Each structure stands twice: as structure tokens, then as C-alpha cells.
């Protein structure tokens, strides 16, 4: 049970103290993590982050306050402290005047279906499952180091604001991560594996987590020591859903966060190329990228955001053109539109900010086989390890992990160290075809200061880029 009465109390207190707007979120995040380091269990980690976060506007200035001491006195104290702080800042006359978008007040209860509730899953289950995964690796002679980790979490939230909105939610999540090192005399390969979703523990079965983990282990042991070098040059390149997903997330999702476009993340994650690109043209007509928090059992699932706005799918790029940005009530208010419910907070102690949920390239109508057949001499990059992108989200790099040569329309030997290093506009302008499949990978997206890691999916179909310049390590 959450201290829901304190959320109402906080909003009442803020109103009494003269705040024009306030919202309060009581949130409890409970987690369990079990890890095996080359078969030996690390100390199991259990914990909870339970407290109240209050966001409020005073004389036009936005403030945030939080405490995990859940008493009326403590809540009153932090709100009074926040008012004093905002008064000090208002006196400097450099505070920004916030305009929130107008949104309908609503009441909602939502949760994720779980066959076995989080409270009924004990540590034994985590250990047993982690052991089963470790069994798949320990007889592989090329695998020399392995860290396998299984985490479960439960997020309970109760949100109210001074406009009469109330939202109650419950989201359990499970995440399998692994870091595998395989080598022989000639080659060392390292790979992160991340598979996760929202739901009961059965969500890992639904996601085929164990089969996918096993496929990854087979792939690592298959490619290490067999990877051939290729020459730098211009190639037709097929990328797998994992690579499509990171491309969508990094080069479209982040720069489409409206707070970045306005400059609010300027000192952290940076700004956005959308400050400069006025044409609205991002890529070829094949470039169709969306963000959708409502995908059932997804890792980035939510039905109402942290400002109590109903969530929906956002089509960020349609047929190569900018269609819609990710907004919260603050940026929507500035723009004169409604929020599209993109505000998220990683725990009670941080302000809600604009975030992605499940960001992906929309599937097309090709089959994977047809895509490979289209390539006479090229490369297939199924997964990646190293990647990065600049703070305007133009200059990006993805280094292939599991990658193969394509010759005469057939997938051939594994190759090593292929690098896609290009600009956003060049990348998406070279997109030629999309397959029918749509697959997702789990990730923790970072943003903001204090740093807020939130669960997301990234995904897409198999993509064919024609004429990409590739480098090699």
C-alpha cells in the first residue's frame, strides 16, 4: 500500500502556500537482482526506493521537492523549503516562466497483467533461472568470463495534481542481462545481452528470453576466431532489428525530445539537430520511426505518463519527414499544443522529464530473404557492441558485433570490426527497404541530471541501406 493520503495532503499544502500548480507522486520501486560471476553467486541485492516527489509552480517558476520521510510534518517541511528556494531564485529575476498545456482532469487505474505477482516470486526463483542460463554457457570452452544477471522490479505509483487528476499504477518488470567474454588464441569477443519486458516472471517466456540467450551464446562461440577482415568502402548494408532499434533511438528519438530542441538539456545530453534543420526532411520515404508506450508487455510500457496525461503512439518520422516531437505539458504549453504524454521519472526523487518509451522503425513489406537477395556484394550487421552519437545527434557510429559478408545474395563468413560512421541525414536517406518483422531489444535509456535511467525498448525490422560508407577497426 502506498501513502496515497500524503499525495493529496502535499497538493493541499502547496495550494495553501500559494503555489499556482502542484502535483504529487508517491512512488515505491522494489527490486531484486541476482548475478552469477562465472558461476559464483554475487551478493544478492534487494532494495526499495519509496517516497514522495512534489512538483509545483510558484510565481511562474518550476520547483521540485522530494522526501522519503513519509509524514505530514516532513512533507510540509520540504514544500516550505521549496517555496523559500523559489523565492530566492525569483528575487534574482532569471527564473523561467513556465506555461503548462491545458489537459483534461481524469481518474485512472492501470496495471500490467501478471500471472504470478511480483510479491510471490522469491529469490530462489531468480537463482534457479540464473543457474539454468549459466548452464548453457559453462561447457563452451571458448567462453572464458561470464556475468549473468536477472533482475525483477515492481513500480507502484499514485499521482494527483491540483487540477483534479488522479492516476494509480502498478508495473512489474523483469530483465535478463549478461556480459560474455569468449576468446581463442587469435580473437577476443565481448557481448552484452539484454532481454526484458513488463509483466510477471512469465514475461521472460513470452519474450523467448532463454531461447534468445542460447542463440546469442551459439553466435558468440561461432564467430570468435573465425571473423575475417573486410576492406573499407561503400557497401549495401543489411542491419538487424537490434541495430535498427539503436539507430532509431539515438538519431531520431533523442533529438525529437522537445526539451532538447528548446535547449533544456544543453549542458547534459545536448541539444538537437532540429534546431537547424528547417526543411523537416530527415531521410528517404522508407524512414518511418515511431515511439509507442502502449505496446503490451514492452519494457517501456505505460498508459498514463508522469503528468497524468493518457499515453498514445507518436509517429515521429513519417515517410522521411518530421511528423511529431515528444512533448510534456511544459514544452506543449510553450508550443501551444497538447502534451503527447512523454513525461517520465525514474523514481520518486526526480522530476518528470521528456522520455522515449518503445522507439522503433516501422516494419515494411519485404521478407528478410528478399532483402538479402537484393544485395549482390554487401554486409549484414545483425548486432552491435560499441556505439555513440554527438550531442546534436548528427554524427554517429555503430560497430558491428555479429556481422557477415553477403556475396551473390547469400550470407557468408563472419566479419570483424565493421563500422557505420555517418550522419543522421545520410543514414536515413540511404534507407532502401524494410522487412515485415518487428523485433525489440530492452535497454535502459539515460537522461537528465540527476541521471534518470528508464526502461525502454528499441526495435525495428531488418533494414537495407544502399551505398553506405563503411570503416573498419
Amino acid at each position: 500500500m502506498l501513502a496515497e493520503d500524503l499525495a493529496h495532503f502535499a497538493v493541499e499544502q502547496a495550494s495553501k502556500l500559494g503555489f499556482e500548480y502542484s502535483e504529487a507522486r508517491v512512488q515505491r520501486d522494489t527490486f531484486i537482482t541476482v548475478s552469477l560471476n562465472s558461476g559464483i553467486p554475487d551478493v544478492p541485492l534487494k532494495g526499495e526506493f519509496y517516497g514522495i516527489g512534489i512538483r509545483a509552480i510558484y510565481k511562474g517558476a518550476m520547483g521540485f521537492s522530494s522526501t522519503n520521510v513519509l509524514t505530514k510534518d516532513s512533507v510540509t517541511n520540504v514544500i516550505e523549503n521549496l517555496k523559500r528556494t523559489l523565492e530566492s531564485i525569483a528575487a534574482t529575476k532569471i527564473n523561467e516562466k513556465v506555461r503548462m498545456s491545458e489537459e483534461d482532469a481524469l481518474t485512472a487505474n492501470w496495471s500490467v497483467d501478471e500471472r504470478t505477482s511480483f510479491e510471490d516470486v522469491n529469490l530462489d526463483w531468480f537463482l534457479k533461472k540464473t543457474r539454468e542460463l549459466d548452464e548453457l554457457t559453462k561447457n563452451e570452452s571458448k567462453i572464458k568470463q561470464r556475468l549473468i544477471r536477472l533482475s525483477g522490479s515492481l513500480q507502484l505509483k499514485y499521482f494527483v495534481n491540483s487540477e483534479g487528476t488522479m492516476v494509480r499504477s502498478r508495473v512489474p518488470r523483469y530483465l535478463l542481462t549478461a556480459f560474455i567474454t569468449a576468446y581463442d588464441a587469435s580473437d577476443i569477443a565481448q557481448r552484452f545481452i539484454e532481454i526484458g519486458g513488463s509483466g510477471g516472471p512469465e514475461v521472460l517466456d513470452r519474450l523467448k528470453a532463454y531461447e534468445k540467450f542460447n542463440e546469442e551464446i551459439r553466435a558468440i562461440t561461432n564467430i570468435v576466431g573465425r571473423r575475417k577482415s573486410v576492406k573499407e568502402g561503400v557497401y549495401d548494408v543489411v542491419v538487424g532489428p537490434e541495430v535498427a532499434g539503436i539507430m532509431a533511438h539515438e538519431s531520431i528519438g533523442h533529438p525529437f525530445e522537445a526539451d532538447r530542441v528548446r535547449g533544456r538539456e544543453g549542458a547534459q545530453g545536448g541539444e538537437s539537430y532540429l534546431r537547424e534543420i528547417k526543411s523537416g526532411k530527415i531521410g528517404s520515404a522508407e524512414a518511418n520511426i515511431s515511439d509507442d508506450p502502449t505496446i503490451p508487455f514492452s519494457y517501456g510500457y505505460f498508459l498514463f505518463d508522469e503528468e497524468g496525461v493518457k499515453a498514445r503512439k507518436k509517429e515521429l518520422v513519417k515517410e522521411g519527414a518530421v511528423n511529431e516531437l515528444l512533448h510534456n505539458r511544459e514544452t506543449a504549453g510553450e508550443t501551444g499544443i497538447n502534451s503527447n504524454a512523454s513525461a517520465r521519472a525514474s523514481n520518486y526523487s526526480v522530476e518528470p522529464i521528456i522520455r522515449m518509451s518503445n522507439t522503433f522503425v516501422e516494419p515494411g513489406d519485404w521478407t528478410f530473404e528478399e532483402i538479402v537477395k537484393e544485395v549482390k556484394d554487401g554486409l549484414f550487421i545483425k548486432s552491435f557492441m560499441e556505439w555513440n552519437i554527438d550531442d546534436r545527434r548528427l554524427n554517429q557510429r555503430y560497430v558491428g558485433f555479429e556481422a557477415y559478408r553477403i556475396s551473390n545474395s547469400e550470407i557468408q563468413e563472419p566479419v570483424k570490426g565493421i563500422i557505420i560512421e555517418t550522419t543522421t541525414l545520410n543514414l536515413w536517406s540511404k534507407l532502401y527497404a524494410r522487412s515485415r518483422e518487428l523485433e525489440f531489444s530492452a535497454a535502459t535509456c539515460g537522461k537528465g541530471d540527476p541521471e534518470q535511467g528508464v526502461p525502454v525498448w528499441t526495435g525495428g525490422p531488418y533494414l537495407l541501406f544502399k551505398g553506405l560508407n563503411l570503416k573498419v577497426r
Partner: protein
Amino acid sequence: MILDRVKQIISNAVDQYSLIESDVDEYIIRFYNGKVTVAAVNRSTYIQMLATKGRKKVFKVLTDMQSLEKGVEDALKTLEIIEEGEVPEVYPKTSYSNMEISDKEIAFDEALSKVINSVDKAYSAGVDRIAGIAKLYKTTYNLLTSTGNEKEEKRTDYIYYARAFKGNGSGFGNSVSTSIKRFDPESASAEAAEYAKISESPKSIPEGKYTVILSPPIASAIFELVAGMCSAYSIDVGFSFLKDRLGETIAPEGLSMTDYGQISDGVNSRSFDDEGAPTGSTKLIEKGRFVSVIHNSTTAKKWRTKTTGNAGIIDPSPWNVIIDGGDVDNDEMIKEIKEGVLITNNWYTRFNNYRTGEFSTIIRDAALYIKNGEISHPVANIRLSDSLPRLLTSIKMISKNTKWVKWWGEVVTPVKSPYITVEGATLTVP
């Protein structure tokens, strides 16, 4: 005392425990386009609990103070069902340093005034806009262990960083201190503004190998990675290029790196670690040789050595890292370079392979082309693509002056670093 409530429940139920209570007051002032966008006031109390019984162990973070007893009992139930294995050792009865390195209280009004002045100064210097953040902390730690260790410790920490923008250029400035007296946002903003102006109209350069000077922000980012890879856990798991290299020369003789548990302006200082072991100083690299691995009790047992006071219950980690200054001035370093690049900051470092140390990182903010010993012009859109072992052995010069760095995203553990000159660094362009 909150810890006494926990002790009452567990003292007869477990063999060992280490309890750390942290009471944290956090003030945040965040601004962009020269305006404060949000002010935050956060107050938290939480307990980290390590408990072992026989050959069983559990670690739990407790934040629900209203149901503290329930949370502790849940951890004890876990101890019943968990499988047996190696257990951490809570440090025996000892004493801790009482080093005075910080203020008694947060000087909020003075800090706010410094932050406002820093913004004004950047605009006076002619930048287009500035964004940044100030974070002020007052933390009280309380330690209580089954071995009879008790310690109360109070800290204040001040962290500020800002980015100024001008045209297509930007600059970065950072100030970290354990005392308001040395907290200097104005100088940080002035530096950010200066670099923004210098880099206003950057030009492309061809991809290739260059001699580079890494300023303290990017040098700190590199050295933070190296210090983290000195962790025994990182080495055992595969997150380090230092496996089997203890005792080897990994850098030139001029390079020495030390981890300090407590030090003035080290904003991650504490006199004890998560197992109650006293923190001290650990030389990691001495005159170019990799001389120490950092440990908690679990990794120390595995490696048949003693803890270095760096627990982290699972992964031992550095506290505050200092790289010794060298023997040259920054200007001399520039004069020595016929053709190269001065790099002032970086971001988004990712590894292709931790065992080989191959990584790349985005060069961000001002990067300045050097020709015949002089700054020539700003450079755009470059990425450093290298390997840590190669980079370390290619350090040619180390500046006399050093600077503390800690900021969002790239330098999480505080690092005090000089400027370094590195030969043969690969810079790529998209």
C-alpha cells in the same frame, strides 16, 4: 537512532552486519538559455544493510523508514533461502580518520549568488546562450557494524558545470569543491564562454592519426575508466584490459595515479567503505607501473590479499582519483606540437572490447587545431577512436597544473587530472 532499530532486530539473527545510514539534503539549481528552469530540494534518509549468516549473505537498501522493521525482516528471510557461498567480511574493530575537508552547512545563498553571477558573466563575455547546473549536498553518514565499529561523518559537496554556446561552437567549465570557499562557478563559466567563442566557426579536418593534448575534462574521463578497471571485480568479469598485468609498466614513468578515500575537494570522500573498512590512499599506477588492484573483502580473499577499503559490496570502486602533475606548462605543451589538436572535452565513451581496451568517444565542445606550436582554428565533428593501453603508453607530456573534474555523464568518480599530450591518436570524422 535509526540504526539502533535495525541492530535490535538483526544482532541476534545474523553473524555479521554492516549498516550505513545516509541522510542527504540536496539542492539543485538548473538553468538553460540563461534562465533557471527548475530548482529542486530533496531530503532523503536511507540505510544500506549487509548481513551474513554462516555462508549466506544479503545486501539491501532500505528507504521505507515507516516500515523499517518489515524491510529488515524481509532481508532476514532472504538469508534463510539463499544458497551458500563465499561471504564478505565486515571489517574488525578499528578507528577512522577525522579529516576535516568540508563545511558544516550548505551555504545556499552564497552558492546561488555565485551561480547567478556565473550566468551573467558568460553573457557579458558575448556567448549566445549558456546551460548548466549547480548541485549542493549536505550528507551525514552513520556507520554501525557487528564488529563494534561506529562512526558519524558530515560532508558538504558543491558541484557545478556549464556549457556556453556561440555560433557553431561550445565550451565547457566545471567546478567541484567540498567547501563553498573554493566553489568557483564564475571561473568555470568564464572558461566555458572563452572556449565557446574560440570555437564559434569550426572547420573539418581529415581523418587520421594526430598528436593530441587532452585537457583535464577528457583526461579525467580517460583516467576514470583506467581507475575503474583497476577493480578486481572488473578484471574478473572481463571489464578491464588490466587482466594479468599487475606489476607491468603500462604508461610512461611520469604517470602516477592514486585513489584517495578522503581528500580536500574530493566530492566522493568517506572515511569508511561499505564493509566498514577504513579508506585510505591506494597507489594504482606508480611511475608508469600498474601497482595495485582495488579490493573489497570478497575480491581480496579470491586474490589472496587484503581489502583496500574500496567496497562496493559486489564491485570495489575508486573514491577520488588524483593523477600527479608533470613538469611542463600548458603553453609549452602547445609549443611542442607541430601539427595536432587540443581537445577540451568529450562525451559518450563506449567500448568495442574492454579486454583489449578498444573504445571511441565523441569529442565535444572546443577542439582546436594546433599548427607549428600555435592554436590555428577550431575543429568540428571528430571522434577519438583508440585503445586504452595504446593511449597510456603514448603519453608524452604531463602538465604541472591539475584540476578536479566531475560532471554528468562522463566523469562520475571525481578525478583530478593534468593536461596530457598523447601521440598517434586516431581521430575519425563521419
